């Protein structure tokens, strides 16, 4: 089957059954979740995971893709209307968005955010499709050593970039990997860390751990650190006004800059949407014909970060689908949903499950197109959600988490695990560890260990197999580079600091 036939089949699959309804529900929940501070895109996706139990794998992925896309836009609603970013990535948007709202142009700012974000997301999906297919052709030739090296590279890259401390990021990644070793060893049948418990023979429930680390910890954080009261909505009668053709042309340059930045940053695992939106804001100001308007109510200042924020989705999915390395928390949750449906994420996803990948491509295009009508309709609901008392929201989310994790296997140990990992996740957050790196370890753990052991079974225990194969050697070299980079930079800064300190002394 050719590319177009595959894509057409993907659209048919995505639209079959209640496809459109599920996509719209995903987008709507994503927008509302993204709009509520404390429920970021990843948390909204984690909370949607229990609803995927009843769905098949492609539909589950489409639902999550919808939540992801919706949350990207949803974050900009309180940022523009209340000067309160719904997600960290929408913080750049409030710099001009809120000023525009104060000037009475909130509806237009929301319209620009919605349209430019959709444009950025759609372009990024086209690039995703264009990059994933050739990468998949290359990856298909990988053997066990290369797959192991790839998993190791992905892990170190994210662990190094996602946390405030490199060493704590690496330790968090190791912790996530360690969690995947609990239970019966699939190669030899040995029991590991089960402590005589029959419940632990099948290992730790990935979904419960993920929901615990992301969502429960966030709720505990909101309870333990009550935030300041929310700001007032600036626009009394908030609505969405689409930009006309002239206005779209005016923000065209910023939209282009945002798309490029979002794609590039998205493809780099670990860099994330927040970084992309701030970089895009700065770059758009640099390339703008009217940079003096930035910070004073520039539509370009809304268009660039929102486009970048949305374009990250396609970029993130390039390493996720082609190599099995999730580019962000949200992408890691997508891979966890695959595990939930018995599909091992990894570099062979495209070759082993092309139907699934093409359905996801089609679903991504459709959910981003659905963003516009759903975004307009859901705005009022978002404003209502923003008026919810924080304790009501927190209590509802915690109750949903308990019933949601229970629903997975009808097993009360799952909510127990979610609670335990919620506490661990809270501790990780306040002590500077990276829950994202731990989740990455959980997603990549089984693959990394099984491919490492398979490689050494193939080579009869010869470790040289990892350096005699060129691709594997390059990947391990890159991994080493990422690991040594912080130490190198530290040494360089110390040397520069000493030189600067020594210079005045030499002059005198």
């Amino acid at each position, binding site marked *: 089957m050719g590319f177009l036939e595959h894509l057409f089949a993907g659209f048919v699959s995505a639209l079959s059954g209640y496809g459109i309804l599920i996509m719209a529900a995903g987008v709507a929940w994503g927008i509302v979740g993204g709009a509520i501070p404390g429920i970021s895109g990843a948390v909204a996706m984690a909370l949607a995971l229990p609803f995927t139990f009843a769905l098949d794998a492609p539909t589950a992925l489409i639902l999550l893709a919808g939540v992801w896309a919706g949350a990207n836009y949803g974050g900009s609603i309180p940022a523009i209307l209340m000067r309160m970013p719904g997600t960290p990535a929408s913080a750049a948007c409030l710099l001009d968005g809120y000023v525009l709202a104060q000037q009475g142009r909130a509806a237009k700012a929301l319209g620009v955010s919605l349209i430019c974000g959709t444009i950025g997301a759609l372009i990024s999906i086209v690039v995703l499709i264009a990059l994933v297919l050739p990468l998949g052709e290359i990856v298909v030739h990988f053997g066990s050593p290369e797959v192991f090296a790839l998993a190791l590279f992905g892990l170190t890259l994210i662990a190094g970039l996602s946390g405030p401390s*490199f*060493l704590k990021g690496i*330790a968090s990644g190791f912790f996530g990997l360690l969690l995947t070793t609990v239970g019966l060893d699939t*190669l030899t049948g040995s029991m590991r860390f089960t402590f005589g418990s029959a419940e632990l023979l099948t290992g730790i429930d990935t979904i419960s751990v993920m929901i615990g680390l992301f969502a429960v910890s966030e709720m505990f954080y909101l309870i333990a650190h009550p*935030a300041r009261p929310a700001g007032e909505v600036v626009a009394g009668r908030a609505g969405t006004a689409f930009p006309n053709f002239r206005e779209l042309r005016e923000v065209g340059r910023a939209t282009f800059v945002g798309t490029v930045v979002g794609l590039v940053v998205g493809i780099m695992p670990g860099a994330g949407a927040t970084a992309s939106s701030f970089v895009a804001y700065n770059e758009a100001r640099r390339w703008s014909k009217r940079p003096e308007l930035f910070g004073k109510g520039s539509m370009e200042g809304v268009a660039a970060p929102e486009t970048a924020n949305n374009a990250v989705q396609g970029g993130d999915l390039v390493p996720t689908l082609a190599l099995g390395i999730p580019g962000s928390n949200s992408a890691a949750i997508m891979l966890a949903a695959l595990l939930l449906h018995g599909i091992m994420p990894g570099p062979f996803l495209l070759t082993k499950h092309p139907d699934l990948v093409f359905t996801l491509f089609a679903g991504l295009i459709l959910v981003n197109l659905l963003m516009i009508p759903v975004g307009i309709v859901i705005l009022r609901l978002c404003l209502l959600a923003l008026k919810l008392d924080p304790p009501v929201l927190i209590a509802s989310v915690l109750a949903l988490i308990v019933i949601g994790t229970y629903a997975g296997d009808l097993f009360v140990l799952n909510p127990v695990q979610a609670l335990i990992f919620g506490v661990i996740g809270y501790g990780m957050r306040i002590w500077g560890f990276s829950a994202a790196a731990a989740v990455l370890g959980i997603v990549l753990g089984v693959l990394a260990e099984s491919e490492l052991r398979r490689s050494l079974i193939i080579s009869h225990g010869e470790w040289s197999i990892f350096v005699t194969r060129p691709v594997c050697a390059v990947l391990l070299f890159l991994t080493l580079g990422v690991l040594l980079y912080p130490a190198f930079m530290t040494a360089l800064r110390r040397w520069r600091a000493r030189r600067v300190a020594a210079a005045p002394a030499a002059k005198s």
Partner: protein
Amino acid sequence: MSLRELILAGFLVAFGGVIVALSLEIAPGVQTDPLGPRFFPLALGSGIALCGLLLAAAEFLFRGEPSLAGLLSDASPEAEEDAGPFSPARFLGAIGATALYVAAFDPLGYLLATPPYIAAILLIHGGARSRTLLITPFVVTIALYVTFRFGLLIPVPDGPLEAILPW
């Protein structure tokens, strides 16, 4: 030098050490598998302990050099912008209430266990109006029950109510 970082480093070393000790108790596996089931947890335990040692070393070597912070240790340990002050009572209360709820989930059933839990979280957080406190637990409980029991067809535990409920 931050005491907090040193304590965390010590915790990592101890945790890694425990993992190494537990890994050595894992059965060695089969001869055709050169690494066996022990290797991966052993390596990870050692790795975590090594991270702890490096963290401690970084604290000693780079103390008083804020420009280096962030590479090997936190740039600002207290950093959590926009967060209110930490309330241990609320934190422990939320954990305790959730633990009790999870313990009661199966024997009491979802419908009986959930409203008191939601009310407890509302009270622990504080700031909820009395009307909210009365209505929310029941509205949320029923909404979630209907979604999971009838929407997703998931058999939610009914506990003692099982004999009374018509479904």
